[in-house]
């Protein structure tokens, strides 16, 4: 077992462990922490696969920005994992859900085991790649030539998301911003009357 394999095993185990712990938490803050753990381990796998740039992006953007946004919202809403998560009767038992998901996973694993990719390469082996495979320059060149159209689309998507987030949280007519805790009567939110002057 060489170092490469060892690193793979460790990061794979950590990634799966992080994911599992994430869904097993009641407290969303802990969940976020476990997800970050999983993502860091995945970033290691990225690097192993030659995706240096994306590995960095994963940690900086994903763990560093997106998940922090999650944390921010959790703090904002003041969730501590003690909220009403009571058991209603469930139409479909948890067991069925597990069985279905695991069936699905096994199906996909069966695909990996039976079908293989590119008969000319030895089964499951990696081809050797160029020195700059996955470097910033190589990815960027591709991104700004062949993929410039989807790149622009991604920009539009972000614009729509920003506008959308604003629309959802801010009332443009009255200029009120986030007002956590002063939720209207949940029975009749339509008839809530604003008392102006609240900036």
């Amino acid at each position, binding site marked *: 077992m060489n170092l490469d394999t060892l690193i*793979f095993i460790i990061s794979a185990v950590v*990634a*799966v462990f992080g*994911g*599992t712990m*994430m*869904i097993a938490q009641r407290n*969303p803050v802990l*969940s*976020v922490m476990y*997800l970050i753990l*999983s993502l860091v381990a995945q970033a290691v*796998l990225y690097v*192993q*696969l030659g*995706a240096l*740039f*994306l590995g960095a*992006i*994963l940690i900086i*953007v*994903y763990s560093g920005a*997106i998940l922090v*946004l*999650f944390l921010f*919202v959790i703090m904002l*809403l003041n969730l501590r*994992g003690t*909220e009403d*998560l*009571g058991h*209603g009767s469930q139409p479909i038992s948890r067991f069925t*859900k597990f069985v279905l998901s695991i069936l*699905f*996973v096994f199906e996909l*694993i069966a695909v*990996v085991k039976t079908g293989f*990719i590119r008969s000319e*390469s030895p*089964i499951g*082996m*990696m081809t050797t790649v160029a020195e700059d*495979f*996955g470097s910033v320059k190589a*990815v960027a060149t*591709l*991104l700004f030539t*062949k*993929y410039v159209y*989807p790149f622009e689309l991604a920009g539009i998507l*972000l614009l*729509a*998301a920003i506008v*959308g*987030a604003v629309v*959802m949280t801010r009332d443009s007519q009255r200029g009120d911003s*986030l007002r956590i805790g002063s*939720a*209207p009567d949940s029975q009749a*939110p339509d008839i809530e009357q604003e008392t102006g002057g609240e900036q």
Partner: protein
Amino acid sequence: MITLSAYVIVAIVLFGIGTIGVLISRNLIILFMSVELMLNAANLTLIAFSRAMNVLDGHVFVFLVLTIAAAEAAVGLAMVITLFRNRETINIDRYDLLKW
């Protein structure tokens, strides 16, 4: 040398965990994070295939998917805030006014 299938299987397992998370989690925020995990699993698959075939297109795609994930997170969290203001719960099972 680690085989490609090893990476892909790890990705599939992560995807499966994400799926289970969506199916069993009552907490809206954890549910979102499960979806994020699923997207990341798909990303890992893409990168593994990219490496195996020496094609960089997969990397670009992953880059774009990260953008999508960010956009979805922004929108989703905005919705969570609105919902929490109206309902004061993030228990997904409580949102069942519309049914049948």
